[in-house]
């Protein structure tokens, strides 16, 4: 959205702007000043940016509580930290009417197909937030029963924490909003153009001498 707000350089100019706005409200501005006043404020944007702007500011989250993070998700919509200030308090129960799926809790292997089906049944501009460590990366329970969300569905924002504070989830949703508006907050690598500096062996040499603290490193956890 090309919204160019000129910073008020000094207080007089700010004061004159206030007076002009007051005259405009009183209807004393004549046509030339009025045209210039309006000219300054007209938003010029593309249709797609406008619909993104509307979509980003009006997520309809799905009431989808799995485990402990669900209680913190309820707290986000409750009185102290109110998500209604951003317009997201319309929690819809059916996936047909919701466009934001917050995976609040740990995803067990019995629940994964159900979540995938609900995600498929949601309508098209849909976004997913993996709230908490358990849905992002199996968190505390690295065992047979838990599946991280990335394994079976695309996730847009991962909110760390176990359970994350309501402010953290709020920040995650606002991150998603800025992504939907088209200017995602850049990771530190993009911001400082530091791609390619990851210290990764492209392919570990056969005689990797790294000491294997973890044992054979196979699928079964061998620190039993």
């Amino acid at each position, binding site marked *: 959205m090309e919204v160019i707000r000129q910073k008020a350089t000094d207080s007089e100019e700010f004061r004159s702007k206030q007076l002009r706005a007051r005259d405009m409200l009183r209807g004393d501005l004549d046509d030339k000043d009025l045209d210039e006043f309006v000219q300054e404020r007209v938003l010029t944007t593309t249709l797609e940016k406008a619909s993104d702007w509307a979509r980003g500011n009006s997520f309809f989250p799905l009431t989808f509580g799995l485990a402990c993070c669900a209680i913190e998700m309820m707290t986000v919509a409750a009185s102290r930290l109110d998500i209604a200030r951003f317009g997201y308090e319309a929690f819809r129960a059916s996936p047909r009417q919701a466009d934001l799926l917050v995976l609040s809790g740990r995803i067990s*292997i*019995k629940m994964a197909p159900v979540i995938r089906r609900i995600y498929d049944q949601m309508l098209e501009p849909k976004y997913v937030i993996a709230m908490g460590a358990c849905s992002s990366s*199996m968190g505390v*329970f*690295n*065992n*047979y*029963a*838990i599946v991280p969300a990335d394994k079976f569905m695309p996730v847009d924002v991962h909110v760390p924490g176990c359970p994350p504070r309501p402010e953290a989830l709020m920040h995650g949703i606002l991150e998603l909003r800025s992504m939907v508006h088209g200017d995602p907050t850049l990771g530190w690598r993009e911001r400082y153009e530091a791609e390619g500096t*990851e*210290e*990764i*062996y*492209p*392919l*570990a040499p056969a005689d*990797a001498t*790294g*000491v*294997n*603290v*973890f044992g054979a*490193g*196979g*699928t*079964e*956890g061998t620190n*039993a």
Partner: protein
Amino acid sequence: MPDAATLERLVGALKASDSESVIDTVESPGRVAIEVKPDSIVGSLEVMRKAGYEFLASVHGVDYYPNEPRLGVDYELLSREACDRVALTLRVSTEDPHLPSVTPAWPCANNQEREAYDMFGLIFDGHPDLRRILMPEDYEGHPQRRDFPIGGEPVLFTHNEHNVPRWFE
């Protein structure tokens, strides 16, 4: 934790009803567990009920992995007048994990026996609806046995990073 006298009385009552049912009593701080033969568990629980222990708090499986017979089942009993707890245990081997179900006499053990079946593979004969309760019904293996791998994913270190190339995407 029943004192020595009541324990003697209980074991005597159990022996009276079924002579060789009691195998031994396991004492640990704050708890007494009377081990009985697997197929005399329903009778023993009835004896305990008459002796005042009429609330069956918990039925759960235990895996005594190194020593045989491997699988055990615990019945935690509570007497409300005497405000006292005692436990009946039994041991079953993995080759023949069959034992009589107590659900017909104690309906409170229904879900818990299904969970013991699901987690340890203990087959309760006579249980009205013995299906898996926690794992998906087509899941092979009983997860809480000691030899079942914990699963999950290995933690990524520099030495095993190449298994998951470009994980940072």
